[in-house]
């Protein structure tokens, strides 16, 4: 079963771009071994991101989007998490088989990450300035004064007012939005080629969310970084992403460019997600939802993992896992009825 999936997923992932990608996740498999049993959290995820491109990874809680990111960064908690298969290639080189030291050097400089909750992700007992300057001192070997200067520049770049005065503040003295800006400054300090933003705006107010997304998009354009934006918020994605990968139960169920995905989803799950966005012109009506709950990862239903919740489910869906196959140019879907979905009017 897995062999088929590998070849077909890889084929679907290639969308006419040249080989030698910046970052590729290839048939990644991760499981969590807990006292209650083995949870198969990632079941063959394949995606990639190139320089200057924004890939949004969309999915609900437990779909495996954050675990994929943690595996890329090498910060998966082991135990309970174990990588059981697949590759994570950075400039074509598999990071999972590298030495720990080689991998460490990629962190921060090659691939950096922004976390969801900046208050807990920043060290509470060191100043924000120290935590940014630390990178210049440890990784670039700069002196105290020079590192401080560079750190203030970074704070300035993420538009923190009075960056110089803020240098000696502790994380708890920042507001939520400022903290996330500081987090962004920290992750960009070493000028990474790929930035992974794991729900960077979830913990923030709606107005601040928009500011942070604008800032991220702007910095990404300036630096021509590859950006992996992990989110469960379809609204956040629409403006900034080039491509979207939708995850469900540890698999990519659909991948497409933003326009195609919103215009004509090729997977019933994506369709369900889009339909459940509240609309102003349907005021007063009941919100549409996807019925049922995401599967228990210790006991994923046979066949398509989405079949128990799928309005289109047929007998074949309960028997065969649909591989991620190409449907039209540059898009792929893991549904037995993807063609029908795309071709309907």
């Amino acid at each position, binding site marked *: 079963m897995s062999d088929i999936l590998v070849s077909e997923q890889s084929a679907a992932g290639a969308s006419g771009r040249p080989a030698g990608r910046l970052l590729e996740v290839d048939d990644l498999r991760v499981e969590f071994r807990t006292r209650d049993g083995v949870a198969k959290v990632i079941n063959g995820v394949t995606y990639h991101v190139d320089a200057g491109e924004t890939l949004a990874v969309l999915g609900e809680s437990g779909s495996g989007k954050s675990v994929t990111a943690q595996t890329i*960064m*090498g*910060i998966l*908690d082991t135990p309970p998490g174990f990588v059981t298969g697949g590759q994570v290639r950075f400039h074509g080189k598999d990071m999972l088989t590298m030495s720990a030291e080689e991998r*460490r*050097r*990629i*962190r*921060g*400089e090659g691939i*950096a*990450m922004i*976390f969801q*909750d900046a208050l*807990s*992700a*920043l*060290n*509470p*007992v*060191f100043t924000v300035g120290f935590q940014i300057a*630390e*990178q210049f001192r*440890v*990784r670039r070997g700069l002196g105290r004064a020079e590192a401080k200067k560079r750190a203030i520049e970074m704070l300035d770049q993420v538009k923190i007012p009075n960056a110089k005065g803020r240098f000696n503040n*502790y994380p*708890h003295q920042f507001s939520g939005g400022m903290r996330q800006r500081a987090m962004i400054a*920290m*992750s960009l300090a*070493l000028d990474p080629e790929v930035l992974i933003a794991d729900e960077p705006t979830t913990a923030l107010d709606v107005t601040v969310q928009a500011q942070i997304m604008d800032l991220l998009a702007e910095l990404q354009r300036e630096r021509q970084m590859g950006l992996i934006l992990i989110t469960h918020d379809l609204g956040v994605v629409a403006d900034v992403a080039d491509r979207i990968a939708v995850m469900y139960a540890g698999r990519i169920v659909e991948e497409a460019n933003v326009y195609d995905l919103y215009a004509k989803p090729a997977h019933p799950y994506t369709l369900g997600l889009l339909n459940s966005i509240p609309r102003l012109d349907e005021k007063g009506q009941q919100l549409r939802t996807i019925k049922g709950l995401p599967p228990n990862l210790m006991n994923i239903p046979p066949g398509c993992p989405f079949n128990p919740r799928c309005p289109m489910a047929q007998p074949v869906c309960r028997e065969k896992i649909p591989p991620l196959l190409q449907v039209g140019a540059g898009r792929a879907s893991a549904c037995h009825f993807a063609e029908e979905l795309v071709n309907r009017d």
Partner: protein
Amino acid sequence: MGRYLLRRLLQLIPVFIGTTFLIYWLVWSVPGDPFAGKCGERACPDAYVNMMTEKFKLNENIFVQYGNYMQNLFQGDFGTTFGGRPIGDIIATSYPNTLKLAVVALAIEALIGLTAGVLTGLRRNGFLDNLVLVSTLFLIALPVFVIGFVLQWVLGVQWGIVKPTVSNEMRISELIVPGFVLGSASMAYIARVSRTSIAENRRADYVRTAIAKGLPMRRVVGVHLLRNSLIPVVTLLGTDLGALMGGAIVTEGIFGINGIGRQVFRAIVTKESATVVSIVVVLVLVYLLMNLLVDLLYAALDPRIRYE
């Protein structure tokens, strides 16, 4: 911060008066004749009793006595023993010995306790972890006098690698075994607290961030993890120093150290009430100040804590 400090210092005044009065009252109200056995086999002559009663104002009301005592105390006069020896001298000769022992004990418990705690906190359930858990349980369970006598006998008498008792010079090398004995229980607590603290913070988000920044593991643990994990340990050490500076009756007794604990013990046994009161008053003051210091230390270590 300044206002907080002032308020705390002002708070010390009623606490100090309350505790010292309690001690004064308890010590002088102990039933029994303070002059029993002071004059050898015979009962003390009336003339002596009358003179002493007058000198120590024993016929006065307890409040007057206490007020009188405090007045002298603030002029730097700790009073005298029944024999006429100034109590200030007793404190001045014995207290440095207690401090020296306290510092050695604190250094040993911090060094061993912290090392054991950090190593086991980073790698739980290994051989070392189990070894530390079992041995700390032993140290906590065994009374100090057992550990003291056993080590004195084994190391000092049987194997002869250290001198069984401490000489008057109080050399640091002589104080290692007594220091270990005195700090043994706290050492065990420090090992356990730091182990838990490290293990807890090991999974904290900011540690994950530090790793994601590509910092070497040495720095992630040595700077980011340790700094946070040490907060409860340092406060524990501070409180312990306060307790250690109160003297160690048992340890000083076993190893023949002329410290404050031994002086208090001797004064209690010989019913030298004035000596007991004066020494305990000093210890109360030291303890109160140490507690204040720990609270300030707490704020210095954790920037989220601010005193207004």
